[in-house]
């Protein structure tokens, strides 16, 4: 019922959102035409959108998207699997949790991308470095949210399980984990966003791989319209991924 009324409301905000962006771009276009903005620094928005065809035809934008996508997928799977497993282990062993939780929290807040030279040395200038970087950046939030989710399971739910004499593993699979899933998923979403940001950042920094490298290339060629177009493209892809994750999250927590 709630979702229905939200859906009814979501069309006008969407229009207003697109309208605002369109208006701002139009304004930039006019200011460039009038010479109020430097056209050597800011490209024409129309030229930015015009360069998409060229990007797909000559710069293999789609192939690069697939490449970055494959790296992102690998990093995501690693982040989700290791993050949740580590979170569960820390939940089970209190002493480990007490010893490591502050450090994990510190890592979650640190700009891990600065550690890229280390990964470069270990894995070389390869996709492995990029995946490892994304993995390192996305891990901490998943671990923390998994812990938070498991710790936050209501005592009455656990008592229900205990009153039916559930074994430890039944208690975990039937009660603790499903009860924690919504919180864990928030962590996974955060982790994936972190991983994606760092992934593209490292591609840019080490000039290797998909979309990040393309942005770097175009910047060095001083092809500003195409560079901005690629950035817009990355933003759009992120929006789509984010929306897909939200949809998945709703699927994980039905009617809540």
């Amino acid at each position, binding site marked *: 019922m709630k979702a229905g009324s939200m859906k009814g409301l979501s069309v006008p905000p969407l229009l207003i959102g697109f309208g605002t962006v369109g208006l701002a771009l139009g304004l930039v276009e006019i200011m460039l035409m009038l010479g109020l903005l430097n056209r050597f620094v800011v490209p024409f928005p129309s030229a930015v959108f015009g360069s998409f065809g060229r990007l797909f035809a000559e710069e293999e934008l789609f192939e690069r998207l697939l490449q970055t996508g494959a790296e992102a997928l690998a990093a995501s799977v690693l982040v989700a699997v290791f993050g949740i497993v580590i979170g569960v282990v820390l939940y089970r062993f209190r002493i480990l949790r007490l010893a490591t939780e502050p450090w994990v929290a510190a890592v979650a807040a640190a700009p891990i991308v600065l550690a890229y030279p280390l990964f470069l040395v270990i894995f070389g200038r390869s996709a492995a470095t990029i995946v490892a970087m994304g993995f390192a950046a996305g891990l901490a939030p998943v671990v923390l949210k998994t812990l938070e989710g498991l710790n936050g399971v209501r005592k009455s739910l656990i008592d229900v399980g205990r009153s039916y004499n559930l074994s430890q593993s*039944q208690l975990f699979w039937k009660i603790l984990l499903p009860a924690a899933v919504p919180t864990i998923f928030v962590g996974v979403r955060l982790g994936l966003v972190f991983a994606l940001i760092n992934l593209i950042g490292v591609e840019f920094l080490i000039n290797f791989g998909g979309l990040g490298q393309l942005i770097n290339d175009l910047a060095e060629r001083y092809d500003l319209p195409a560079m901005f177009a690629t950035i817009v493209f990355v933003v759009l892809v992120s929006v789509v991924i984010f929306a897909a994750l939200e949809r998945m999250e709703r699927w994980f*927590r039905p*009617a809540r």
Partner: protein
Amino acid sequence: MTDGEREDERDMVAANAKLRLAASRSAETDLVIDDVSMHFDTREGRITAVDGVSFAVERGEFVSIIGPSGCGKSTVFNILGGLIGGYEGTVSVGGEIVTGPHPSVGMVFQEESTFPWRTVIDNVAFPLEVKGVGKVERHEVARRFIDMVGLAGFEQRYPSELSGGMRQRVAIARTLVFEPKILLMDEPFAALDEQTRLLLGDKVLKIQQDLKQTTLLITHNITEAVQLSDRVVIMTFRPGRVKRIVDIRLPRPRDGGVIGSEAFGRYVAEIWNDLREEASRGMAESEAGARKGRG
């Protein structure tokens, strides 16, 4: 009352309870709680939550435990359910000493305890699922109990789509589906409004009469205790002891109409008489505690 007198009274109560226990053992007893004490160590020192509590519940009987907040009611509930250990004394179910959750005891909890990620029918079928009963069969059984608590038509809904009273009925159905011989309920209606509480009380009573279940209800609501019970165990404020056991001799089957009767009012007044002293002592102590905490 001086300390000495209080001591005497306590001994007498304990002696009475023991006598009762001895007498009831000869009859068919399902649940015996014998001289149970429980202490907790807190920062303010050792607190005796429950002190030498003894009583027995006979087969098919409906007994309520009533007492002010802080009388150890919930501790007794957790002990009987086998959820906590480390107490003195013994608890036995159908003659067996309780060391953990007993398979013939079903528990309904005070707090929200339905699983939000499961539909009503999967919530109710949960105990059967854990036992390894196949999906078709467990859903069939679950449907029967969903019907019994009056939630037919809501099988595929999630708890978040239901009201508090409906969710508590789901929890009751989930406990009943296991067909426990003994039903323990810890203030199951505490979070509900008065009307819902009375209607749900009727429902529980009817189910209890149909299934002839031995039922122990923990409550702080006098009306509820009198409406539902064969006997009411009145507990004292901390440390929780059995102050008195009142037999409720109201005709059965009872329904909501019994509340208007003169006898009902007499029982409520009688229990309140006993409870008032304990409740005001509890209030005074918690106020003193708050004052100390602030200073």
